[in-house]
């Protein structure tokens, strides 16, 4: 999508933009529409801000298309910090930045539909695809971890083909389990903990995103690639019974 969006935004000068987040944060937004280029820009800009070590900055993270700086709300020169960020923004074409190093591809088994994915039928209907086409579209897509957020280790993954540009629900589903696969607005999430959600619950994996006692507590990083392998409910139960690693039967390959 979104080469058009980016060039439009660049032409109007709307992006990148620096916006305050309450008194304790600044968000450098590279787009208000999800695009692969804006996501790469956000990741690369975060890495560069970390290297610069600006005064007043307490912590960094990225969202889908933005770099977030948690700042000291009483830092006396927020305007000066914004000027430093602006100079850094102007110093290069962030939309052309490369992806992070050390990325992996994970093929994650999921039960799709049935009692493990009660809103799969709804999601298919919203996509306008036939049921078999929808499953093929889901399982043949490779999505990228665009950001980690919401809950510990939880990935927002995209983008799916345009048919999956389906809105969130206006009513929250009170609870979906850990490992639930949900879909909305061309993105997938696997939940790292049981939670209420406004996204459609379409499947279930045994992949654990957050492993508090492991050496590597967070299983995915922004930039990692993920594809979904459809499995039966029986296979899911077998994986659950046997998996001791938290990988939930995922095949993991390091990308060059």
């Amino acid at each position, binding site marked *: 999508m979104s080469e058009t969006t980016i060039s439009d935004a660049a032409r109007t000068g709307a992006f990148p933009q620096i916006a305050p987040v309450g008194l304790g944060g600044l968000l450098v937004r590279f787009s208000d529409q999800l695009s692969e280029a804006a996501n790469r820009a956000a990741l690369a800009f975060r890495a560069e801000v970390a290297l610069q070590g600006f005064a007043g900055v307490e912590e*960094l993270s990225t969202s889908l298309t933005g770099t977030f700086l948690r700042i000291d709300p009483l830092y006396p020169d927020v305007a000066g910090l914004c000027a430093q960020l602006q100079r850094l923004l102007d110093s290069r074409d962030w939309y052309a930045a490369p992806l992070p190093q050390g990325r992996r591809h994970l093929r994650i088994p999921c039960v799709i539909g049935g009692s493990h994915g009660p809103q799969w039928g709804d999601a298919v209907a919203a996509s306008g695809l036939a049921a078999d086409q929808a499953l093929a579209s889901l399982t043949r897509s490779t999505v990228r971890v665009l950001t980690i957020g919401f809950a510990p280790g939880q990935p927002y993954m995209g983008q799916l083909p345009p048919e999956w540009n389906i809105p969130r629900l206006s009513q*929250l589903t009170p609870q979906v389990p850990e490992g639930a696969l949900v879909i909305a607005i061309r993105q997938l999430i696997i939940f790292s903990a049981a939670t209420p959600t*406004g996204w459609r619950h379409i499947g279930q994996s045994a992949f654990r995103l957050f492993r508090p006692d492991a050496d590597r507590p967070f299983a995915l990083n922004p930039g990692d690639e993920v594809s979904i392998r459809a499995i039966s409910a029986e296979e899911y139960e077998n994986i659950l019974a046997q998996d001791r690693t938290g990988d939930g039967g995922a095949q993991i390959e390091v990308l060059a």
Partner: protein
Amino acid sequence: MSPPCPKLQVLAAGPGISVQDLGRFGYLGQGVSASGAADLIAMHEGAALLGQSPALAAIEMAGAGGSFSATQDIRISLTGAPMAARIGDMPVAWNASHLLPANVSLVLGGARGGVYSYLHIGGGVATPPLLGARATNAAAGLGRALAAGDVLALGRDAKAGMVNQRLDPLPRFGGGLLRIVPSLQTGLFSQADLERFCAIPFARDPRGNRMGVKVLPDGAPFRSEGQLTILSEIIVPGDIQMTGDGVPYVLLNDCQTTGGYPRIGTVLPCDLPRVAQALPGAVLRFAFVSADEGRAALRQTQTALAALPRAVVPLVRDPHQMQDLLSYNLVGGVISALAPDGLDHGPTDANTDANTDAQPIAEREAR
């Protein structure tokens, strides 16, 4: 060899009792929210009463209390929403520090006038840190609620002996005015709705927890443009999130790190204890302030917190005063009437009596 550190035994625990500190920082990029005490003012008050750092971990109780005992004599202080408190058979004052002798039970119960109550211990709770902090965020898989039978390690108390102190708590109970600054999506709301948002009263709904509390508008719900399709974006505590039904949630320290519902504004961090302590039914109002006014408010609160150690006075065993101190259901009203430091921004006392028999916070619906 130094003697072993004391331990705290949990003899009984209601729901929603957890170890908290000032929060877990540095993991936003991995989706880990700050957590920490819902009422950070209480953490500072408890620390001032014990003459120690507010960064030491304490025990937070959400409405229901518990009973505790220690393996050695320890010092404790009690802050936040007042509870009935006994050491052995002796009722003891809230907003005060006490000696808890070894193997004598401390029984706390029935918060009144607020939601979150705190038990602080000399030397702090010294459970093993998780990702660099002791704050519990059970919903996110970081620690769990305390239960009967738990035994908690305690830190070494540098100031053993200093007890029987009290202080007047800073005003924050019973609802009132919340100062807000614009958020990332404020511009998606109409000017008319923004004006209405600041004109009408909101009632704190029973639905709420450490992630956030729902506040019911006196009037129509609030709609924004593109409500169900906006890009998920960074969330910070204090954000006022408009869910699909147009009723706002004010997010607290356990809130998720990102979300896709539009936010109409962000409550100043210094006013979040007022949100957390508002009982169901309490009246809350919102007012936009400029960034400069917001920073001035933060500085004022910081100054008030820094002054707390000097506000600690001996707990005089005057029968009249004791009567007052034990009348914990009056505390909210007494405090807001005093408003000693100019931090009180609203009619905090009017709701207190009505709130004391409001329904318990056990009904917790997350968003």
